[in-house]
């Protein structure tokens, strides 16, 4: 790729157009409805300068890491059971189908009833929403293990442990990473919604607070922070991880 192509000029042109329209609409309807791009930039610099950006991002991320981490661990256990027993695989598959059909709002309301207005509400919501995504991906991975490779393992009398390590784990890994990537994106989107209720830190909380004090530009600033967190974790964690683990491709 040349540096011209890397700039993605067509995308940049569209972005420039959007910013122009944005500015025009902002003039017409006022900063409460739509703050100007400039005020958003100023607001962003402000939260970086005061360090507020780190406080709230860290609060949100720590909840996500706990909830999402627990979901990944649970999904791994479920997939392991699903690998050992066909019955267990069926159960996991049916349960994930039910969980996948459950709305985020159900978990938010239930978690407020169960845990009150504490940080366990967003953690629990994140866990329940990301669990079926990661689990169904992993089960699919376990099922897609090439039986012909397992038969090769039998021919050369590899032990069950050796077959698991050399054949099952590497063929399931891409599914785990894909599931984690989607799951993490979902976790970030869902946990901030749950943060509207009862907690006093986190991106969701501060966005809602900004709305209440009529600082609409700060709502936009925090939306930008969320987008940046998402794009950065994708690029720095998941893409890097899959590149590293799938060197052989």
């Amino acid at each position: 790729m040349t540096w011209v192509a890397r700039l993605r000029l067509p995308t940049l042109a569209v972005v420039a157009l959007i910013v122009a329209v944005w500015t025009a609409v902002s003039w017409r309807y006022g900063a409460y409805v739509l703050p100007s791009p400039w005020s958003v930039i100023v607001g962003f610099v402000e939260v970086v300068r005061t360090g507020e950006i780190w406080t709230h991002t860290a609060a949100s991320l720590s909840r996500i890491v706990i909830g999402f981490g627990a979901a990944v661990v649970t999904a791994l256990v479920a997939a392991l059971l699903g690998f050992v027993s066909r019955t267990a695989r069926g159960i996991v598959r049916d349960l994930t189908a039910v969980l996948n059909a459950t709305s985020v709002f159900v978990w938010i309301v239930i978690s407020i009833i169960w845990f009150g207005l504490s940080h366990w509400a967003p953690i629990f919501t994140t866990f329940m929403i990301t669990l079926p995504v990661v689990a169904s991906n992993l089960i699919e991975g376990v099922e897609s293990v090439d039986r012909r490779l397992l038969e090769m393992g039998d021919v050369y009398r590899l032990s069950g442990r050796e077959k698991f390590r050399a054949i099952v784990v590497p063929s399931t890994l891409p599914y785990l990473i894909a599931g984690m990537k989607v799951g993490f994106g979902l976790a970030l989107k869902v946990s901030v919604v749950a943060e509207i209720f009862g907690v006093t830190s986190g991106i969701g909380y501060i966005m809602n607070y900004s709305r209440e004090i009529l600082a609409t530009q700060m709502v936009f600033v925090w939306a930008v922070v969320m987008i940046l967190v998402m794009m950065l974790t994708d690029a720095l964690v998941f893409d890097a991880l899959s590149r590293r683990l799938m060197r052989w491709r």
Partner: protein
Amino acid sequence: MAVKLVVEDVGKDYLIPIIDRVSFSVDAGEFLCLLGPNGCGKTTLLRIIGGLEPATRGAVGIDGELIVAGRPHQRRIGVVFQEDRLLPWMTLEDNVALVLKPLGMPATERLATARRYLGLVGLAGFETYYPGRVSGGMRQRAAIARALAIEPDVLLMDEPFGALDAQNRRIMQREVRRIWRETGRTILFVTHAIEEAVEIGTTLVMLSARPSRIRELIRNDGRVERLKLIDDLNTMIMEEVERQQGGAP
């Protein structure tokens, strides 16, 4: 010469009878080619001999030990399948070294042995390549190296060059014959290509149409002229193909 492999009255029914009754024995160091029309049970017979599939009747013995699917035995059987069945996430040398683990070989010796056999099949210099980075012919060479590395009592090859183009096929036929001469292994080679069999086999077994029996067992010792042999075998196989399609006895 010592008898290496005995196949006695082996038959297989799978919804319909596939193999009626087949008996033959193979001396140590022989290169036996199994010929026959498509779908006559050549692959099934090979899988029964390798202990990958149970026989409906009859028995298989290697060096006096019974080989029964699913039951452990002390003999070493190497198999080269139609597909290479290499693990794509392991380098060629790791693929070969993996199957030496169950033999209780220490790690450094495993790697040295793997490299030696990769060298034997003409893959010196490609030891650290991943299977996806080399050609189909080279992958099949690596699969042969893997099967040879365990120093098998019997080496089973199931149309290993079926997926290769004509030129690579010829090269690989010559290579297999060279490897056979250098290692002195007992080889069973399944093919439906007559010229290939006449080119490389010391004994040719022609199976009949389904349910298969042995139609002809020929010692390929040069007493029958090569072109006449190919001609005769071609006539035989066409008769069997017609019989199988017609369904008449």
